[in-house]
């Protein structure tokens, strides 16, 4: 896949608007693209992921579904198998429990089970992440769960620019892609504001290759490998620690499957130290996989033991103070970086 990288002009969008722009442009370009899910029509997506699409494309291409995830994700899979390109929204990733059979036994496996004869060109969008007291059933990331199950690509943009380019790439991809948007990077008026959730976005369509990490800040002392909202926290911490003479390199994975192991190794080869920041649960997940990518390849690559900043293995608390005690906050990231610098 060749990614065309246009120059970013001065026009700025929120991550949510960048996502919608990509979906709208693909719907204009390709009649087989359509959108379905709970509250994606008149409401525009509860995190503004589909705002305005119903008005532009009408109810035959933007379908509000009942609360019946197995039925409507199954519908999307059937449509994809028949040659349509559905963008189907699972309102919160936490709801995967009621529809996982469709996702991992059907969507992810049909291509393999058919000996490569049947494709499932589907994008499953879903809201992830916590930080706003929405409780244990509405605050998880769970990208590690989908990444563990083979047959799906899994992406998680952190900026408006990446949100548009990854969405365009996901819609054009011949296979199923899980597109996980963190509520904290969408740039929503009613959520805590994040300065990097508004940024320059080219007006023309472009793709960001799925599976390519991005070094968003160069550094020489420690590699901070992360994804989604945690990229912003890592950049804030890197800025602050630069004042103390610690040079952090921040790697935004952007894609969890495929995982850009080469980019992780290249960064660690330069710095010799590794901190992984992951808003998903700590055990059996992305953070361990990132570390394994390094040490399996070169056990001598690290000068200090790697440190993970992730959600400890407990459900995410509702109470604000307890929730922030488990989230990968800037304070925890700072502490982890000091630990690898002075083991």
């Amino acid at each position, binding site marked *: 896949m060749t990614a065309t990288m246009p120059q970013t002009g001065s026009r700025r969008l929120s991550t949510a608007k960048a996502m919608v722009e990509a979906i709208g442009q693909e719907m204009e370009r390709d009649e087989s693209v359509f959108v379905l899910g709970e509250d994606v029509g008149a409401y525009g997506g509860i995190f503004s992921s589909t705002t305005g699409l119903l008005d532009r494309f009408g109810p035959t291409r933007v379908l509000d579904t009942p609360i019946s995830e197995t039925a409507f994700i199954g519908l999307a899979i059937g449509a994809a198998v028949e040659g349509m390109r559905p963008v189907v929204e699972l309102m919160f990733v936490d709801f995967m429990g009621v529809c996982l059979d469709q996702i991992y036994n059907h969507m992810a496996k049909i291509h393999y089970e058919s000996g490569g004869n049947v494709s499932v060109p589907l994008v499953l969008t879903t809201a992830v992440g916590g930080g706003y007291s929405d409780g244990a059933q509405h605050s998880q990331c769970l990208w590690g769960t989908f990444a563990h199950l083979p047959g799906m690509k899994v992406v998680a943009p952190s900026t408006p620019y990446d949100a548009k380019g990854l969405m365009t790439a996901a819609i054009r991809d011949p296979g199923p892609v899980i597109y996980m948007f963190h509520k904290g990077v969408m740039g929503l008026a009613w959520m805590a504001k994040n300065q990097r959730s*508004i940024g320059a976005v080219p007006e023309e369509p472009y793709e960001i290759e799925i599976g390519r990490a991005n070094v968003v800040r160069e550094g020489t002392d420690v590699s901070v490998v992360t994804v989604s909202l945690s990229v912003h926290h890592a950049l804030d911490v890197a800025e602050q620690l630069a004042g103390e003479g610690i040079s952090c390199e921040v790697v935004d994975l952007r894609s969890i499957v495929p995982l850009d192991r080469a980019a992780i190794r290249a960064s660690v080869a330069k710095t010799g130290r590794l901190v992984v920041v992951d808003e998903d649960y700590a055990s059996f997940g992305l953070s361990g996989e990132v570390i394994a990518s390094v040490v399996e390849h070169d056990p001598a690559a690290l000068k200090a033991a790697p440190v993970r900043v992730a959600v400890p293995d407990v459900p995410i608390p509702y109470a604000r103070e307890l929730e922030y005690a488990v989230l990968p906050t800037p304070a925890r990231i700072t502490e982890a970086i000091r630990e690898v610098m002075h083991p």
Partner: protein
Amino acid sequence: MTDIVFPAMSKDNAEAEGVVATWFVADGETVAAGQLVAEVAMDKVDMEVTAPVAGVIALASAEGDAVRQGEVIASIT
């Protein structure tokens, strides 16, 4: 000079207050007619504000400031 006012989002209360949630343009930037310049919010409802004419925009309120509807939030010359 063309003023941009906080839109009348409340039908019941002419004095209702909201906030400019996001400026998509910087003070002094050149904008095109119809370009998205801001998102404003009132009682958890948000609304886009576009430039009525082309020109150079001067912002009259900061993000997060409480603004009465009808009040000038920016002007374009």
